[in-house]
């Protein structure tokens, strides 16, 4: 019985590390910083959660600590990547050339006027753009 739970825990940890590997691969393959953060955040969150869960299954008496750790990772991981992405955009790191739209930059006003779009888009950009 104990052996079975340990094997299940090992398999769960293995799946978690697989997701972590995919996240690392995403960091290398993605073209710009924002897409890299995307790949990094999602894969590392689930990967870390599964790895910790597997360790919790192997050492059953650590379960409380594992739950606390999972909640902390779940709350803090998205916040850190949100701050990183915001800071990257603030200091003007360019988006990749495949980008279709950037509502956050200061330029959309000009682009909208050039494209002769409807007035509604211009209005929303005036409201948000400083």
């Amino acid at each position: 019985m104990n052996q079975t739970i340990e094997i299940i825990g090992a398999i769960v940890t293995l799946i978690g590390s697989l997701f972590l590997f995919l996240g690392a691969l995403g960091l290398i393959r993605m073209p710009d910083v924002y897409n890299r953060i995307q790949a990094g955040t999602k894969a590392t969150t689930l990967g870390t959660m599964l790895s910790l869960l597997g360790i919790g299954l192997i050492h059953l008496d650590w379960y409380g600590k594992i739950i606390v750790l999972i909640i902390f990772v779940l709350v803090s991981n998205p916040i850190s990547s949100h701050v990183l992405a915001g800071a990257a955009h603030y200091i003007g790191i360019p988006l990749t050339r495949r980008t279709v739209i950037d509502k956050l930059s200061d330029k959309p006003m000009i682009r909208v006027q050039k494209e002769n779009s409807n007035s509604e888009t211009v209005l929303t950009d005036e409201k948000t753009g400083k």
Partner: protein
Amino acid sequence: MRIKNTIVGFFLLLATWFLLNGKYDIVTLGIGILISLFISLIFCNKCEIFSEMNFSPKAILYFIVYVFVFLTELVKSNFDVARRVLTPSLPINPGIVEVETKLKSKLGRMILANSITLTPGTLTVKIENDKLFIHWINVVNTDIENATKDIAAKFEKYLKVIYG
């Protein structure tokens, strides 16, 4: 609503204490209650985080449903990232779009932004009042109404009941 803040903070601290300790004897219980009460009385008076939360039965039910919706989205997003990373042509169509939220409370907005970051292909870059700027790895709709419907609506209907 200060007393509500203190009570919620107290129980959160106590739960964390028990999870970290892993023991349930009388000494641990006493020390835990004492420390939690002390910290929550000092610090939870000034913060306003928990005063916006609802604790009606409906809100608790919605919270449980929300956790399951969130976990499904998290797993889905991981398979989405895996598919995109492993495809040789790298099928992305990225862009930053704008989303409007109806949530008023700060904690609700924070949880909405966190959920959006962990759902398939979206990343919250900036929050300005009720506007969220979201980096979307596969842009489908660029206008604000449809983007809101695609990205935020599935979480908003639960969070609106929980946080108001």
